[in-house]
Every structure is written in structure tokens, then in C-alpha cells.
């Protein structure tokens, strides 16, 4: 067998070089950013003091807490509803199996723009545009919802069976009836699933846009941090966890009601 190579795959030098380069870069980044065990242990001491100050949580200012949570919840639900309403027609326009290219492109562009920025960045823009408060937050979360629901809905519509659509079209049904009878039944269950997922995401994001002044519990949390009210911070964090759990139950109920 002399002279026969046992390699089952040709040597890929560019790939080997790429791996070596990646390893070198990781080593550089570690050293450059002071990511060392010693630094981590120093950090732990600060962490210990911080965690100690968090407990016991202080619920004395519960009115403030409830007001913030209520506002966050309302913002999330409103933004989800508005986002859903806007996404339904937009996703229909963006579906390449139902619409010509000159309609899908602009629709998809709107979705991409809506999805490009984190909700907090969009919130900053809206705070500048319409002023501090829940309105800016609702608008920011709505934009994010349109971006994501629009994309998910569009993809769901593009995966439907066109045979069913063809049959409805063959009856002479107008376009909207084709949508109502041929498209909607095929995507409805998935739409409910996506919408409840988006409600969940909006609940979490609605606790954050307050940091930049766009309403909700986030503003209260940020203020407490800045005043070193760590026991109140702890109370807020626990309440947010409770709200997310409640949201989970809520979305599961929605899914059960729609039997998906």
C-alpha cells in the first residue's frame, strides 16, 4: 500500500489558516479587555456588596411600583394590538406568492426598517419626537412589533398551499374573499402563536424603554439605581419577574382560547 494516502478529504489550507486566525484574535481580545481571573475576583467583591444591599427588598413605595407596572402592561398590550393590526395588511402585501414584486419590495422595506433598530433606540427617537411618556414607548414598541410580526406573518403566508388558494380563485371569488377563505384558514393558528410571542416580547421590552423616558416601570427602575435605592431596585426586579410570569400565563390562555 506504499504511496497511498489515507486522507479522505483534501487538505484545506485556507480553512486551517482561518481557524488559526480566529484563535489568535480570541487571545488578543482576552488580553486586551482585561478579562482575567484576577479581575473577575476583584469584581466579585463588588458584586457581594451589591447583592447584600438588594436584600431585603423594600416594597414600601408599592404605589409607585404598581403605577409603573400597570403602565408597562398597558403599553405592551396596546403596542401588540396596534402592531398586529398594521402587520396583517403589510404581510399580505409582502408575500411574494400572492403579490407582484413592485408591491412586495416596498412592503418588505418597511418591515426591514422597523426591525433595524433595538426598541430602546427607536424609543429615544420617539421621546425626542413626541416627548417623554407612555406615548413614545407605545409607538416604539409598535414599530418593533410591525417589524417582527410583519416578517413572521409574511413567511407564514409564503409557506401556504397554493392548491387551496387556486381552488378558491377558480370559483370567481374576489381577491379579499380568496384571502379570507383560501389564505387565512391556513395561517390563522400560526398568526395567533406569533402574536402571543410578540406580546411576550413587548412585555419585556416595555419594562426597558422607560430607561430612556418612554414610560413604564423602566423609568422607576433607572431612578432607583441612580439613587442607590438597591432594596427598591430588588422590589422592582421581583415585580417585573412576576409580571413576565403573569404574561406567560396570559399568552397561554390566549392560545388555548383560539385552540392552537
Amino acid at each position: 500500500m506504499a504511496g497511498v494516502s489515507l486522507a479522505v478529504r483534501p487538505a484545506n489550507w485556507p480553512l486551517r489558516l482561518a481557524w488559526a486566525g480566529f484563535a489568535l484574535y480570541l487571545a488578543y481580545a482576552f488580553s486586551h479587555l482585561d478579562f482575567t481571573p484576577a479581575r473577575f475576583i476583584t469584581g466579585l467583591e463588588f458584586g457581594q456588596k451589591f447583592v447584600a444591599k438588594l436584600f431585603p427588598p423594600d416594597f414600601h413605595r408599592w404605589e409607585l411600583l404598581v403605577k409603573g407596572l400597570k403602565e408597562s402592561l398597558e403599553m405592551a398590550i396596546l403596542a401588540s394590538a396596534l402592531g398586529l393590526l398594521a402587520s396583517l395588511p403589510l404581510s399580505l402585501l409582502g408575500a411574494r406568492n400572492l403579490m407582484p414584486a413592485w408591491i412586495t419590495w416596498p412592503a418588505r422595506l418597511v418591515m426591514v426598517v422597523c426591525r433595524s433598530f433595538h426598541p430602546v433606540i427607536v424609543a429615544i427617537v420617539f421621546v425626542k419626537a413626541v416627548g417623554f411618556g407612555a406615548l413614545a414607548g407605545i409607538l416604539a414598541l409598535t414599530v418593533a412589533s410591525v417589524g417582527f410580526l410583519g416578517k413572521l406573518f409574511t413567511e407564514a403566508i409564503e409557506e401556504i398551499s397554493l392548491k387551496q388558494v387556486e381552488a378558491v380563485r377558480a370559483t370567481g371569488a374576489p381577491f379579499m374573499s380568496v384571502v379570507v377563505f383560501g389564505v387565512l384558514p391556513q395561517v390563522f393558528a400560526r398568526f395567533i402563536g406569533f402574536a402571543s410571542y410578540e406580546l411576550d416580547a413587548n412585555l419585556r421590552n416595555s419594562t426597558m424603554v422607560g430607561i430612556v423616558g418612554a414610560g413604564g416601570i423602566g423609568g422607576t427602575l433607572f431612578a432607583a439605581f441612580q439613587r442607590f435605592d438597591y432594596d427598591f431596585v430588588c422590589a422592582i426586579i421581583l415585580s417585573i419577574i412576576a409580571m413576565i410570569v403573569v404574561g406567560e400565563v396570559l399568552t397561554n390562555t390566549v392560545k388555548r382560547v383560539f385552540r392552537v
Partner: protein
Amino acid sequence: MENASGTAPQRGAVSFSGGSPLVIRGLAKEYVRGKAVLRGISLEIAPNGITAIIGPSGTGKSTLIRCINRLVEPTAGEILFEGRDLVRLPRKELREVRRLIGMVFQEYNLVERLTVIENVLSGRLGYVSPFKAWLRRFPPEDVREAFDLLDTVGLSGLALQRADALSGGQRQRVGIARALMQRPKLLLADEPTSSLDPKTSVEIMTLMRDLALARGIPAVVNIHNVDLARRFANRMVGLSGGSVVFDGPPEALTDLHLLSIYGGENWLE
């Protein structure tokens, strides 16, 4: 059965030879430029009963039948129906004409997640506004007729089942009921039995022939099973290579014709 077409404007009205409800002249279709699937088909459909279109797979049977209600856009030719040339109809009038043409599909094409009765009623979508369709507010006489049709096709009691719960034969019965729900003046069927077992195929063909005859609706049926076509059609059209190579009654169809339609030799023995 009332005239559902009402007083639709007669744009593109053409005079054509009397008797045949559907006249096709010089119909051609190229999906890709230069590659003809249909090469100048000319046909006159029998005024009643089943006109069967036979031919090998890939010879354009489906394309031909889909050109009639323009689920596929023809490249050239004329299709004369109800005094109009379907090939040249603008979209809105095309919809009006489609309401008069019921269609039955090889894979049934029911809306799987809707109930059986909703599927049957979808045959009336051309006459109901989208908003009312969304609310399922169909005229009471339509709903009554839909239930009657389910009885007729032998599915009474299954009205509220979801379509995806039915067997193949049952689904095709719903497909036929949906087509008849349009109160059509023409019935198209694209390989209606190809997904069914032999016994169910015969049942479906019997049902379709009997209903078409009883209601005086001419039917054009694509079918690749020659024996089934012979048994149920009163007119046979043989298609090969995108052209008509046989057109006549089933009795006139000889083995020689079959060889010219399907090619080859030994398979007939």
C-alpha cells in the same frame, strides 16, 4: 336553475358555431418562450355529458383545462364561452365568468382547516362580499342548497367535520359539491380520480357523470385512465405532444389511435 350571469356586459362578444357551449380555437401555450406545451388546439366540447381528454403525462392536459378558466394564461388562441372570448377578458369580467365554471381538482384542493360545509359554500364566494364571507353570512337559500348538495354527494352528517378529517373519496365528493354549488354552466375536472383507488374512482366518475347529466352541465374531464374514460365519456379527445390527435366518440377509439396518442408498442398487449 336561474341564469346566474345576469346581464353581464358582453365585451369581446364573438359569434361562434351554435350547439357547443365551449369552443376552443388555435389555443397555444408556452411557459417558456419557444417551448410550446399546447400547439394550436381546436375543439368543440359536447353540449352534454362528459368530454374526456386523454393523453400521456406532460402533454398539456392540465394546461389545457387551466387555460379555460385562465388559472393559466394562454399564449394565443380563442376560447369562446357564453358568447365571450375568455382569452381576452379583463380581470373583473374573468371573475364573473369563472363563477359559471366549476372545477374539480386531482388533489381535491379543499381548504383543509375549514369545515366541509364551508368548503361547499366557498362555491358561492363569487356572489358574496368578502366581508360577509368573512363573517360566514351566506344567503339562507345558499346554505340550504349546500346541505342538499352534501346529501346528494352522500356526505350528509359530515357538514361540520373539518375537511382534513375526510378520506380521499369523501374529499373529492366535497370537491364536486363545491363545484356544483357555483350552479355552473360548465364543469372542468383535472384528473379527478388519479389520487383515488379503482373502486372509489368509478364511484366518483359515476357521481360526476350522473350529476352533470341531471343538471345539464357539460363536463370536460382530464383523465389518463383510458378504460375509465371509455366507460364514462360520450366524447373522447386524444392529446399528444400538445396537439389533438383524436376527436370522436369512445367507440371510434381504436388501438391504433391509442398508439398514436401514447406512442410505443408493447404496452397494449
